[in-house]
């Protein structure tokens, strides 16, 4: 496993660093979770009403 990751890291000269990958993945997870919370879980009345039919259709617990 370690040998393989060293190999792949050494392979391409333009290989991106693990840190870049981690930052991009973290940013995507952060924004994705935020949006998902808003559309599926947030309880303020207006958000709930706007997303109501979508929540039921996607089987989020709604009310």
């Amino acid at each position: 496993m370690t040998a393989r990751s060293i190999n792949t890291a050494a392979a391409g000269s333009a290989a991106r660093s693990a840190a870049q990958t981690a930052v991009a993945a973290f940013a995507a997870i952060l924004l994705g979770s935020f949006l998902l919370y808003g559309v599926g879980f947030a309880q303020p009345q207006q958000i709930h009403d706007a997303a109501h039919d979508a929540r039921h259709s996607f089987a989020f617990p709604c009310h």
Partner: protein
Amino acid sequence: MDLIRRLFTAALVAGVLSGTAASVVQQATTVPLILEAEKYEVVTPPPATVAAPAPAGAPAASHAEGHQHGPVREVGEGVPVTLDEAMQRIGLTIAANLIAGVAYALLLAAAILLAGRPVDARRGLVWGMGGFVAVSLAPSFGLAPELPGMAGAELELRQLWWLSAAAGAGVGIAALAFARNRLVIAVAVLAAALPHLIGAPHPESAEGAVPPELAARFVTASLGSAALFWAILGSVCGWLMSGVVQPAERQPALRVQPGAR
């Protein structure tokens, strides 16, 4: 920054396409059932009428029953009467679907990136089916997709259980697909099973206002449209992520491919 831009572009396109497809299918399948169920929600009397009969529709009264926590929909509020209301409701649902699509696509694209395996549209489809099992099928195994007016346990408990079932299933699927260590796989499978072993929160008496036939049709409609949503989401995400995932890591897989197929 280039990586983030490409990742977010892939997720945006995949989310918008799958959200649009889900919107079309939902308007034909789940939404009519929701509107139908809301008619029953409107006429539901408070479940326990032991105390002085509360005036129907008083939010405070139904809140006190302990059945409805969180926001209580006003009687008849949700049922669109005019064309304008109906169009607004459809528009908001489409917007919510697009946001849900982009949100799930961001999470899936991040998982594909972290896995570092080569992807294309076909492998993306497999990723999408994993997403379907994790966030649609696994939570539905304990908490059936619910219509308005169905009896349910406390909202926060159900949301927490839904999240743990989805996250557990996601971890379990990822471990089965990628982990080598048997202990890791065993722990991940246990994490997937644990919410189901504990059991989903259900109301003490399962007496909702919605006819069971309507609820049954809704379950299949919800799962079916979610399956289509995830198939499109996964395929498009895999297709667009094919150029984003580290090209250096593709070479070994390409060498293996002729023998494997």
